[in-house]
């Protein structure tokens, strides 16, 4: 998955860079980085399914809202996640997602950090040959 965690952005929190040839892959990469920050996805079973749709005016806002929804579902459903299917309509700037995961269970899952929020710290989405973004998560 084209994302990597960065060390030189923040000491107290978690930052990552995600890339993708399409908005679909960018969104999927960024979502996986968020999912992995909360728990090792290999240790989470796909017992629960959450579907959501986001529509925004700009790509930046759409990605922000899309990732924020994952954080929101983590708390609302007391869940961690293992996979996500994403479909982004680049023309209408609409993202549909199917997120799979399970209720938190530290006896079965390798849990990491409880992400508080997606920040706007140095946040931007760029498109050159490929899409890329750098995101800082507040821990």
């Amino acid at each position, binding site marked *: 998955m084209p994302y990597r965690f960065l060390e030189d952005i*923040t*000491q107290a929190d978690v930052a990552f860079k995600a890339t993708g040839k399409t908005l679909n892959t960018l969104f999927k990469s960024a979502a996986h980085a968020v999912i992995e920050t909360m728990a090792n996805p290999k240790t989470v079973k796909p017992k629960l399914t959450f579907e959501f749709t986001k529509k925004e005016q700009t790509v930046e806002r759409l990605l922000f809202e899309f990732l924020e929804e994952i954080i929101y579902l983590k708390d609302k459903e*007391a869940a961690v996640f293992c996979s996500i299917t994403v479909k982004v309509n680049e023309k209408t700037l609409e993202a549909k997602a199917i997120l799979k995961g399970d209720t*938190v269970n530290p006896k079965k899952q*390798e849990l990491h950090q*409880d992400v508080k929020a997606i920040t706007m710290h140095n946040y931007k989405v760029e498109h050159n040959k490929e899409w890329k973004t750098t995101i800082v998560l507040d821990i």
Partner: protein
Amino acid sequence: MNEFQKPEMKQSSEYTWDIPQTYKKGMNVPARIYASKKLLEGMDNSVYNQLTNVACLPGIVKHALCMPDGHSGYGFPIGGVAAFDPNTGVISPGGIGFDINCGMRLVTTNLTYNDMKPHLKKLVDLLYTKVPSGVGGTGFVKVDKPKFREVMSLGAKWCVDQGYGWEEDLERIEDYGRIKQANPDQVSDKAVSRGINQIGTLGSGNHYLEIQYAGEIFDEKTAKQFGIHSKDQICVMVHCGSRGFGHQIGTDYLKIFADAMKKYELHVPDPELSCAPFNSTEGQKYYEAMACAANMAFANRQVILHRIRECFSQTFERTAEDLDMHLVYDVAHNIAKVEEHKVDGKKRKLVVHRKGATRCFGPSREELAPRFRKTGQPVIIGGSMETGSYLLVGTDKALEETWGSTAHGSGRTMSRTQARREVKGQELQKEMEKRGIYVRTASYSGLAEEAGFAYKPISEVIDVMHNAGISKKVVAFKPIGNVKGTAMLNQMILLPLLLFAFLILQLLF
């Protein structure tokens, strides 16, 4: 983190370093950092950039301040303090943080280290199961939406009214555990559904519940007035905030303020400093929503105190009253409040933002309960889980210099990834146990990230504020047991599982 050059600073006293208003275009006031030379040299360069960005905000009064535990944050640096004129100035979620009213709570007991030693593991294990922590932790207090609105409005008082605490607890909490401006109508449904099940939970990151003993008493008279009577006395410290509820309010208003900035034609150097005029509709709505999150955090720590009292009572087979489990104090270190301060000799109302900074009012302040009007307010500053923590007392000098504010913790010196590379969580847990600190955690990577070496030495931070006369040392505590912000088996799934197992056994036998 090192893309900005350190500005030239003028040392204005032994522990204060000033950045002139001319350093950056747009600065409305100068900036001041409280630090020793060593701590200053260790600060990452983003702190200077972020602090001087704060100095650019409209309506800021006198100076932008950074405490000695300062490190880079979002918008404001962590350790940042700034006061704004309510008529010409702004309120900024970036000056408060996503974890609104993250704070500290300290509880006494009449137990000694030797009393605790044979029971320590059993007690920490019990606390670990009774105080949920980590990803997706849900609390035992179940409320519906109307009741949650009461929590938002009443804070710790709601808990005491429900039997989760003692009446005396309330006067030992900043603002008596309730910010009156709270208005649940300004809170989104999303924030409510994110936080409604989280009352009484720790969270993760650097949040913790710690059993400590008094290691050194610096000021016996004040220590006694605060309930610490001797070395080796066992106390309990809690660090947590408003959980997903506050995080969602921060996120909601960051977006609302991005639009408000255009409406009010405000320009800031960093999008994380998005703000609105304090007296605008958006500014007031955020202030009222922030107060709801602050009250939820007071309630959260109050319910945790109730659980701590239950666990001690069960372990030692004595009542919490018999164990003298009194609250010393509860302080917020991520908050904005309207306070009266003297500016150039005249009293003015100001919107004081403290982000990773603790209120430390001296004895002259009317906001303090009568019991603290001779001493000043207790100030609780937590260190890393290996080094220990401090109880201090606020001073009137702080009111003159820092809007009555001091440091809040150690401040990180190392990234989480770097800390994980340096040590494995399991090794650290074993090593700490050899040194007499028993830790329970379900996230070993999270434990490694919180290793003592990843933080600045707490004693240096404390000494700066003590020697500068801002907050005076009362007691230093040493950790012996720690529930680290991790995760537990969710009670919502545990109970059905136990019921199912019970039914199966019934069928078999």
